[in-house]
């Protein structure tokens, strides 16, 4: 049983529910448990590559650390008693002073970011984009017009990247100075994208695509019993923790 097999819409709803429930909890153990179970699930029950997990988690760890520091220095309150503080005499005075204000809420904030990140990658790295869109169409009644529009735009990305670098080069050869933040090539690219979207829409229409007319589907994503089990287990275990 792999995470990829699960219905993407159910998976997304489960993750979203968990995130909302976690937002109202201040439980460090719960946060860390969620984070590590997400990692374990990804490592053992999905095809996600470890390299991808690390690359995506790096900025999340940075953000978590940032939140931790913010909580440590700027939050108000005192969660640590002075008796506990004196035991930590090896720690520099400045840190002890900061800790005296709020170690606990700092940890709460930091681990919360981690748990969010864990849930996020749990969904992102085990879901195929096209399947997700198809599932949104079948389970959440997303109109085919939007669904195929999103898919078309998604598949245009490589062309847009190429176009952007070509536009930069073209402008430089006209004697314009093009810095890393110049808007001129972006403008050229956006004008092109608008034209592209028009041609794309026309190409799709000429192949008989009409946004809201009835259509058949090659494959229809369905909700199975194991999707519901996954959802109930995830949300249930968070509820038990609370």
């Amino acid at each position, binding site marked *: 049983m792999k995470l990829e097999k699960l219905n993407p819409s159910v998976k997304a709803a489960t993750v979203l529910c968990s995130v909302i429930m976690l937002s109202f909890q201040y439980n460090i153990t719960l946060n860390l448990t969620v984070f590590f179970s997400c990692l374990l699930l990804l490592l053992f029950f999905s095809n996600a590559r470890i390299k991808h997990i690390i690359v995506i988690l790096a900025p999340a760890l940075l953000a978590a650390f940032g939140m931790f520091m913010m909580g440590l220095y700027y939050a108000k309150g005192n969660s640590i008693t002075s008796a506990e503080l004196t035991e930590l005499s090896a720690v520099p005075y400045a840190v002890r002073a900061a800790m005296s204000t709020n170690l606990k809420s700092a940890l709460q904030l930091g681990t919360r970011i981690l748990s969010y990140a864990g849930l996020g990658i749990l969904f992102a790295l085990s879901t195929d984009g096209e399947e997700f869109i198809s599932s949104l169409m079948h389970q959440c009644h997303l109109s085919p017009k939007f669904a195929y529009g999103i898919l078309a735009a998604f598949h245009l990305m490589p062309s847009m990247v190429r176009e952007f670098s070509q536009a930069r080069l073209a402008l430089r050869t006209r004697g314009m100075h093009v810095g890393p933040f110049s808007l001129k090539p972006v403008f050229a690219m956006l004008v092109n994208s608008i034209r592209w979207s028009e041609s794309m829409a026309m190409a799709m229409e000429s192949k*008989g695509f009409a946004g809201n007319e009835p259509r058949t589907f090659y494959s229809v994503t369905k909700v199975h019993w194991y999707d519901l089990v996954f959802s109930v287990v995830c949300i249930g275990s968070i509820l038990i923790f609370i």
Partner: protein
Amino acid sequence: MRKEEFPVLQLEHVTFRYYENAKRNILDDVSLSILAGGITVLMGSSGCGKSTLAAVSCGLLPENGGYLEQGEILLYGKNLAEMNQSRRAAYVTMMFQNPDLQFCMDTLRKEMQFCLENICVPSSEMDSRIEKAVRELGVEELLDKKLHSLSGGEKQKAALCCLYVMESKCMILDEPFANIDEEGTRELIQLLTKMKKLRNQTIIVIDHRMKHWLDIVDEMILLGEGGKVLARGITRENIEECYPLFQKEGVFYPGVCQRTTPVRNMEMAACHLDQVSILVEAGRGRWKRKDRRRQLLHQVNVRFPKGAMTAILGPSGCGKTTLFLAMLRQISYEGNIQFGEKAWTKKEQFQHMGIVFQNPANQFITQNVRQEVESSIMQWNPGIKDEECACLADRMMEEYGLLRFHRYSPYMLSQGQQRRLAVLSVLAGKQNILLLDEPTYGQDYRSTTAIMEQLTEKIQKDGLTVIFTTHDEELAHAWADKIYRVQEQKLQEEMI
């Protein structure tokens, strides 16, 4: 030959323009009917409304913009306006000139499924229909490749395949060869011949070059300004009678590209390539960089003559454009590229060399045609007076047939007009080496000649060095003083 003699497509007094208040009608009271079966080619000069005519006939316009003032379009005797897209697709489907913008899925199989879903084919039949179509057309190998990794010609083949699998009665192809090389063109023609033989579909083609079509066409129709029919019933037999008309309309016809200028003196070299090798990264993804590198050119030694025109021929993807990028020092290469005695800094490089890209729309720096030309003139002639500049711009736009569009946005021009404008705005500079990437792609004879003549004049007057890439051998032989062909990672010189 045609078997049936009933009209597939009838346009009756169609008048169309893009803006309700525009002065010019793109289609002006057009009446045209096309008979069933066989291949019909519609010809006309750039910007005469051919593409618009095609889109209007499919019902894509005015639904996606524009204003249909009057007229009626009948498909198999039924009014087009009363059908929805799905039903229209049973009668007519269309293929476009830009191969990148026709697919909304990532593989041909999924795209074909999408097409069949649109026309409500039950999912149980889809696989067999797709298999049958690719087998009949012999394109099985394209089925599961990522579409963005295909060449332009392969993409156009895939697009044709999609139309074929839908089994609509009539197909309209809008300049299907505009963005692909000779090889791809030949393969597409083969595919079309096969389709014609297998199903006797009605195929309507819009093109300004007839050379590829002569062997398989059943009828050619010449369109003039405003989409008016100037001549029809042109076939291989009576084509010579129409040459004067083609000449007047500025449309290519066989043998029109004749050499008029003698080969120039080529003793001086503007640019030396010494043992140049170029490796590029093929495919996306940066994880395994070394595996994906591909050798495009290997130890090339050539010289491009000064004050002359050099053509570089070769199929797409062989490294022509990449060579230009190397000359502009935009990509890394091994070996030595020399221009004259002293080396230029990167900044100086662009003062000496100009380049016009395949997609000219990227090169525009202003939002109107006149400003575009004027800003170029100003940039390279600092301190020029405003009136003088305007006067110069007027003259240049006149020469290129762009004066009447001088208040348009460059992005609103047709593809051919855009390219003319790009060439024009680069030529307004004082560059002494000009690189042109496919300068005459998708242009009619008149504008091709206009550009080449303009370049010739610049060469004679200012000693400009022109290097251009092209797929068009006739063009190269008619204008270039030296021709190189990219073959087996080398540049081979070719006899003129």
